[in-house]
């Protein structure tokens, strides 16, 4: 079962179907070959829905994880391509929705202004940093910790939760409140 140049779509589908059936029986080599051969298809489906290259690759990885979790749902008597395509479509849609929700809250880093304006005289820059430090110092301990883990060290919520002992919900609330406090204190000018 090797990939053949110029093979028809139906031949390719039958070959993939056989590889998936072998993978369901525990054949790791067949599974590896199948997933690697399917990557271009997964990427093209995700790219059609998501223009951003990073989002596309994230959606491809999501699709691979989903495919792995639901691999028992594939019926070798049915075509393989619609099965894997449906999974990729679903994950690309989810990524697209998540991107849509984020877009309103984010500024593209290319277009964002510097955090501290370089044209600001050095003495004032020092003053701004000192103000930021003071504001951070005045935050309640749980909020400062949440901000440190989630925004400065950029840990995932699960990792930050494991590190801090706070629940994911408590972390979200603490981070949100910390940012609101800082915004109020520094951002009003």
């Amino acid at each position, binding site marked *: 079962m090797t990939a053949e140049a110029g093979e028809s779509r139906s031949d390719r589908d039958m070959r993939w179907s056989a590889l998936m059936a072998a993978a*369901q029986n525990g054949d790791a080599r067949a599974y590896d070959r199948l997933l690697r051969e399917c990557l271009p298809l997964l990427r093209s489906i995700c790219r059609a829905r998501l223009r951003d290259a990073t989002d596309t690759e994230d959606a491809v990885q999501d699709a691979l994880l989903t495919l792995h979790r639901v691999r028992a749902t594939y019926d070798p008597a049915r075509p393989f391509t619609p099965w894997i395509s449906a*999974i990729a479509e679903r994950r690309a849609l989810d990524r697209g929705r998540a991107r849509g929700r984020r877009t309103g809250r984010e500024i593209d880093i290319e277009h964002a202004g510097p955090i501290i304006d370089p044209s600001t005289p050095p003495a004032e820059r020092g003053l701004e940093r000192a103000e930021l430090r003071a504001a951070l110092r005045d935050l309640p301990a749980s909020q400062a910790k949440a901000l440190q883990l989630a925004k400065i060290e950029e840990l995932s919520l699960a990792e930050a939760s494991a590190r801090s002992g706070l629940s994911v919900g408590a972390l979200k609330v603490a981070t949100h409140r910390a940012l609101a406090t800082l915004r109020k204190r520094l951002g009003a000018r």
Partner: protein
Amino acid sequence: MKTEDMIAQLTEHLAPVRRLPSPATLTLLWLGIALLVVVSAVAVMGLRPDLDARMAAGLDLRQMATAGLTGVLAALAAFQLSFPDRDRRWALLPLPALVLWLGNLGWGCLQDFAAHGPDGVRLTTSFPCLAFVLGFGLPLSLAMAWLARHAAPIRPGPVAVLGGLAAACITNIGLTLTHHLDAAAMVLAWHGLAMLVTTGAAGLLGPKVMRIAV
């Protein structure tokens, strides 16, 4: 992580999996469980005393047949949709039977109104209907969510809602056999409300069950 590295990780410790039964087989399995529960409930509560006369009148028989058909088709649609490659239009499968169920009861309301005037369609409360359908239907909906737990990363919402509708419809047959409701308007209102509540609750809770079970 690079995608190629992820593939290596996924394949490294690949365990064999048992292929899932077909949607039709899963439907039959769930219907077997549902019928067992409903028959047990009817056995405990007893048939309504005037059942023969009610069946002869036709309305209840048609009501049970259309509810049962809706339930079977909703269950099949739910299991079809739980597989990634099935067309989402499967969700429409139970709609014609549901329209027949509503139409039959609507026609019954008109007949009651013609025979008894406004008294024939007067509504009173009947909370036991709600309790019966919700009490037996919701666990059956969650049993379906468990059987269709592989749908968790694909389309858990539609599968759970259809599961709720299927469970409510099958439970509705048991309710018709045991509970004393004569007026079509009462059946439409209380059985309909019970089916709506059960379907809604299943739609909320079913995806959670799938995520926990998968």
